[in-house]
């Protein structure tokens, strides 16, 4: 969508126009949900995170100052919601894999199991790893963009990407096809 339209929409929403905010939600729910899904690899949880993100967006849209791209800002918001959500879920200590869900057309059902396993591994790998993987690999952002969103230096992102690859190749292959 064109930037001027977006800027106008955000400004109107910031000044309290409900209709504009609604439009903004309609435009960005898919993005929000996608980030959330790539964070947790699970549909129902992603819906939860997305809902919280939308609520948070309502409260904090006024703080958006147009200094960064709206999507970058949105990434930040969704990731922080997802982190909060994960903390609040800690009591479940889930070892369980996601329940069987109908797979999307393009992916094999087992991919979602792998994805969930992978996300869990990344989580154990240390702080910031999953976020980095989400942005760099999942969303295809550059290291600099990811650094801006996560508030760390670019070299940190590069290091994390390197460390992740090293760790992942060292492990037994996550998914061995062909058998």
């Amino acid at each position, binding site marked *: 969508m064109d930037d001027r339209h977006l800027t106008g929409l955000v400004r109107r*929403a910031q000044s*309290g126009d*409900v209709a504009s*905010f*609604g439009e903004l*939600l309609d435009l960005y*729910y898919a993005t929000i*949900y*996608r980030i959330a*899904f*790539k964070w947790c690899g699970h*549909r129902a949880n*992603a*819906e939860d995170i*997305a*809902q*919280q993100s*939308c*609520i948070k*967006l*309502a*409260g904090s*849209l*006024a703080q958006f100052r147009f200094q960064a791209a709206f999507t970058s800002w949105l990434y930040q918001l969704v990731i922080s*919601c997802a982190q*909060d959500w994960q*903390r*609040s879920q*800690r*009591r*479940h*200590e889930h*070892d369980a894999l996601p329940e069987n*869900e*109908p*797979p*999307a057309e393009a*992916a094999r059902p087992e*991919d*979602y199991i792998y*994805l969930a396993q*992978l996300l*869990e591994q990344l*989580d*154990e*790998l*240390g*702080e910031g790893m999953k976020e980095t*993987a989400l942005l760099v*690999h*999942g969303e*295809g952002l550059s290291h600099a963009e990811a650094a801006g969103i996560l508030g760390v230096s670019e070299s940190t992102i590069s290091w994390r990407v390197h460390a*992740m*690859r090293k760790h*992942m190749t060292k492990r037994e*292959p*996550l*998914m061995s*096809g*062909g058998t």
Partner: protein
Amino acid sequence: MRARSFEDLLRHTPPLPPDPHARLRARQAALAEFERVHAQTGEARAPIESGLFAKLLGAFRAGNPARPVTSRHMLLRGIATACVVVVAVSTVWLMPPGQRQFVRPPAPITTISQDRQEGDAKLTSEAAQPLETEGKTEVPNPPATTQPANEHKLRRDSAPRAPRTPTPLPAATGSPPQQAAPEEVVVDAERIHPQNMTSSAPIAAISQDVAPSAAGAPPPPASASTGGELEEVVVTRQSRVRSWIGSLFSHKEKSAPEASAPAPQAPSESGDKFQHFEINPVKRVADEPVSTFSVDVDTASYSFVRRRLNEGVLPQMDAVRVEEMINYFDYAWPTSESADQPFKATVTVSDSPWGEGKKLLHIGIKGYEVQSRERPDVNLVLLLDVSGSMDEPDKLPLAQQSMKLLLDTLKPTDTVAIVVYAGAAGQVLAPTPVADKETIVQALDSLQPGGSTAGAEGIRLAYQLAEKNFRKNGVNRILLATDGDFNVGITNRNQLKGFVEREREKGVYLSVLGFGEDNYRDDMAQTLAQNGNGVAAYIDTLNEARKVLVQESSASLFTIAKDVKLQVEFNPATVAEYRLVGYETRTLNREDFNNDKVDAGDVGSGHAVTAIYEITPVGSNAKLIDDRRYGAADKAAADTSGKAGEYGFLKIRYKLPHGLRSRLMEQPIRVDAGVPAALEKDVKFSTAVAGFGQLLRGSKYTGSLNFGDVMQEARGAVGDDPYGYRAEFLQLVRKAQEARGM
């Protein structure tokens, strides 16, 4: 099908499409929040309060469903009411915990949406017994980092939440909330039906919706509704605190159901946590001839048992790990001569004192003793918990004393650093050579307990220091002293474990010293120490500190062999049944033995490790398991011709401290091995300890053995007892006898 790289997987796995209802719900909730925020612009509220306000507003409106009011009018009234209620809530929170309960309505009301039952059932059951958490004053506050999560939870709860599946709530779910059973289901007072989603005044829609959905059950009175809201705020926060503690320290998921089984001996008021395990059963050689386990050099269990017995009560069963009791004592197993062959194994065969017709196989391992001149350099970081709960004579002061004892065993060139954690983590002492002992002692003495137990960056800081000062070819170790609050900065249990594991790979190891009781988290200490290639010890007295940190300092600091695994293959021609005494938490799968990736216990310099098997020789009538009618008994005999003089075959795998590949040691176990005269007392004494442990554990395999028999057996085997540990054991047996008599 090709294996996908992880990058590819992340990039090209399309998200499963969201439920359109979820999208609508999110939209609705966000719009409601948006309207609320903009209605209040200029009033400059803190975000958490505004979340709370929304909830209270909702409650207020829900209480007046009959009166249609304009949105503006309602908001003004709502804010006024909300202010009053917020004051009330704050007052509740300022009140001492004991008096807080009176605001609670008779039955806890927790909103629960139908589709969330699985997850929220836990919440409800937690909410059903909130007093327990309330009453406990020692409950640590969640660390500052989780606070936003709590706030956010409140915020989230403030948003209307509709069921995920758009089926209307059946009236049957409106069962009387007075049944405070765990499976209690309460009508969601904030339910929105999808068909009302398009309403431009969503909050008004809620209030009108409550009545029809609860039509089958008596509608909740308006005032109770407000009370319910209050309740939920309170309960939510409690369950947060509770779940925070629970998740940090809870047993592994799989052991949780077992752990909830009543332990007859466990004093219920004790807050100490132990992992539950079942004792090893008797196994039939014909069915399962191979037994595999990892060594265990921990001694925490014995110290804990001693403490309880000294207090005149029997320890809870799960606190008794028989192998740790046996290994508490030093035995004179022959030792190896050089570091290259780090230990030697000794096998003895004797009659079982508690099972007629049965034999005991002792497998004794004694680690090579590192001579002081060849000791590697030590880079030690002490990580001390100085939270308020450590303010007891047997906690921080004992830890301080213990650390001073440890200093005496170090070389002048070794370094010690000190990091503390409580409200804030901090470096108290940069790595300082032991030659400058004065400074170290001063730093230790300056430590004061205080502050909340909110975690900080303690463990990270400690590892950072250890890495900065890393000694290649030396010993790099963190020594964590705590009374059980492992909220050392990383609050996610898996992350903490992963963190310790990664640091282990870098060469920094972790040992855990436990202090005090009631709050002691044995399970967590074990997990961390095992993952960090370290020892978990429980220190209850200065004597114990001396034993662990001085007499065994070289053992706990200098590892001579790591990932030590034992495997015994029994000979079906000579052994009918066997049972491994203890080591329940250390059993390995048969295939793990040759897999160098499977982590196992470590043996330190001079460590003695003893394992005992109870076997039933073929031909003995003490067998517990009958022969199989359709078993092929003679097949086994054919394979073992010429090996009739062997009970079995012992294999040991280990790695040298810096090695990556394991080495193998093996030897047959001879039927006529007997017990060498020099080892007679050690065999007898370790047998007595094993008997004692099994009695405390409530083992069903010890026949008519009683504490008196143990006493008799041990008394004759005290032998040379320079530090009086064995004499102390006799005292403990007597105390156990008295405690049981009561």
